[in-house]
């Protein structure tokens, strides 16, 4: 059964420089370069390899949350309970450690707690599809942090520094320069990026994010995917909790407050928008480093964090507004008119 008209269809994507140039990621790279040039100019201490690696430590532990958050946003949902999941995981890591468990087991407990929290979010989300994920995770956000508070009250649980390898997770550096956490992050990021862009799972995530119903009718198991992603998010909250605990050598119920907005902000600045089906993993990763290094550079010259708040907010809004001004479309329309 062949087409009657014998028309053929172009199957190759035309390379278009213009298209590449109007991509959001291109803008991000440009901003990234500009920020680095600016930073290098305002502080002569900025351009030092150990210094920069050091700086990555400040933001990479939160950045672990951006990895699954990209997926969550990609399928058109949102999880604002991640900070609370980090808190609960960290608190239970501390509790188990101080109850005499070996640290490796306590780490597994933390990861397990994260997975359970994520799973709870996921289960509620798929069993009650009527509910907007925002309200589910708003509820669990309060609940998870509340449980952490119930367990630890206003106390902290600490003493993690006594376990050297655990301290090294955050503080250790390979060859004295490259932080261990940086290496782990890069490995995780590569895996997440490949899955998002090269795997069947990734393609299906884009489908679910673009149109949940059409995806369902196309034989995609949407509930399973959502459950998987929420649970994965929980796991990475556990991972983030492990690094945060290593960073601080102790844990408290207020750990990770506000992480959710930081993580969402980084994804969104990277072009993984909240309406689903859009964005690119590279963009999110560029924005992680863009924001982190911007903050580091301004911190080096002791700019008040109030000004940083304003800059960060403005950057976020402009970042999302620029693609909407849609230069590509503007060119196209002119071309048609001319024709």
């Amino acid at each position, binding site marked *: 059964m062949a087409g009657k008209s014998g028309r053929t269809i172009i199957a190759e994507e035309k390379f278009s420089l213009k298209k590449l140039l109007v991509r959001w990621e291109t803008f991000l790279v440009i901003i990234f370069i500009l920020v680095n040039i600016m930073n290098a100019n305002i*502080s002569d*201490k900025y351009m*030092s390899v150990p*210094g920069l690696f*050091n*700086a990555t*430590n*400040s*933001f990479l532990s939160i950045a672990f949350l951006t990895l699954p958050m990209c997926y969550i946003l990609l399928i058109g949902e949102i999880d604002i309970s991640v900070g609370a999941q980090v808190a609960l995981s960290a608190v239970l890591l501390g509790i188990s450690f101080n109850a005499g468990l070996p640290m490796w087991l306590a780490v597994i407990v933390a990861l397990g707690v994260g997975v359970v929290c994520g799973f709870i979010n996921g289960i509620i989300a798929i069993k009650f599809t009527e509910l907007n994920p925002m309200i589910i995770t708003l509820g669990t956000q309060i609940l998870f942090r509340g449980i952490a508070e119930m367990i630890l*009250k*206003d106390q*902290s649980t*600490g003493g993690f*520094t006594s376990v050297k390898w655990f*301290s090294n997770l*955050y*503080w250790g550096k390979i060859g004295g320069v490259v932080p261990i956490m940086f290496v782990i992050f890069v490995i995780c990021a590569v895996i997440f990026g490949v899955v998002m862009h090269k795997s069947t799972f990734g393609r299906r995530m884009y489908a679910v994010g673009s149109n949940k119903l059409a995806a369902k009718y196309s034989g995609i198991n949407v509930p399973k995917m959502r459950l998987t992603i929420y649970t994965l998010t929980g796991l990475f909250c556990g991972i983030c909790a492990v690094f*945060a605990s*290593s*960073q*601080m*050598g*102790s844990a*408290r119920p*207020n*750990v*990770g*407050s*506000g992480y959710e907005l930081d993580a969402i902000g980084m994804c969104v600045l990277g072009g993984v928008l909240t309406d689903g089906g859009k964005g690119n993993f590279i963009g999110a990763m560029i924005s992680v480093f863009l924001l982190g290094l911007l*903050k*580091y550079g301004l*911190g*080096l010259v*002791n700019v*008040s*964090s*109030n000004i*940083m*708040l304003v800059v960060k907010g403005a950057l976020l809004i402009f970042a999302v507004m620029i693609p909407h001004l849609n230069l590509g479309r503007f060119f196209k329309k002119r071309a048609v008119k001319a024709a």
Partner: protein
Amino acid sequence: GSKSDSGEGTTTAPTQAATDNTDDGSGDAGSADPYATDGTYAIIVKSAGNPYNKKESDGYKQVIEAQGGTCVIQEPEAATAEAQITCINNVVSQGVDAIAIAANDTDALEPALKQAMEQGIHVMSLDSAANANSREVFVNQAGTTEIAQTLMDAVLDISGGEGNWAILSAASTATNQNAWIDGMKSVMQDSKYSKLNLIGVYYGDDEYQASVDQTAAILADDPNVKVIVAPTTVGIMAAAKVLQDEGLTGKVKLTGLGLPSEMADYIGADDAHSCPYMYLWNPIQLGNLAAYVSIGLVNDVITGAAGETFTVPDANLGENGSYTIKEAADGGTEVILGAPFAFTPENIAEWATVY
């Protein structure tokens, strides 16, 4: 949560000259005193937008600059340990000589501060201590026992020797609140206080609205409560407001630790005011002393070990500027600024304009 903070710490009697003393300090700067310096000193406060902390950093900066050094002020964007660690990283990268920090969390800064110390940076804390492992010395506003004793005596005095009383705390992440409360409980063992009955400790989380709710809960739990002690600036403010609004100023009295500017309206001896007197210390002087201690550590005037004595070139501090470093309860060492200062109906108007 909005940690508006500062009910932590203790100290000194601000003399009338408190506002001028920094000028005196700078006057001394020229001579070749052991506190002259050309180094860079960083102070990390609890968070941006906290005027109490700002007074501390102002005091710190005045002295550092007067002594010839460079002062770096870092204000974390939130009152969390994470944000402070970022600040620590920043100042370490800048290659400062010393860090003074008002810790948002006792233990959580240990790894970061230890790393700074390993790089040869002198680390001390002020206002709210980082744990013993992560500092060379702590500049304490007031000793825990002094505060506990002072507050207990205030309860005894205000209640007339007997009756029910309650504590409105902050549930702050800084441990000093609980240290004071424990201290008060042990002071209470004395038979002198036997007719006082503590009905409970309430936690307002250093949030205004929560503190208001907690105050209401105190009043609901025990309508006969006589005295509320709030060793937190937010808590005392909220409690004062509730008592005022409920028209209970004659019936329930209030004391604790509070900012004079916030509490000026509520302090008075009559039944129209709920708070007969309260205590605090002078944050500017705390910053001043912290700066001298920082310079002292860098210039090797002191090492931070217990038993050391030193004299700062500012007669308004301590007894003619002389201090002794003592063992602190947490196993580290500390310098105590002085005893808590009482704000009374007589002096409050004057202090309300200072901080």
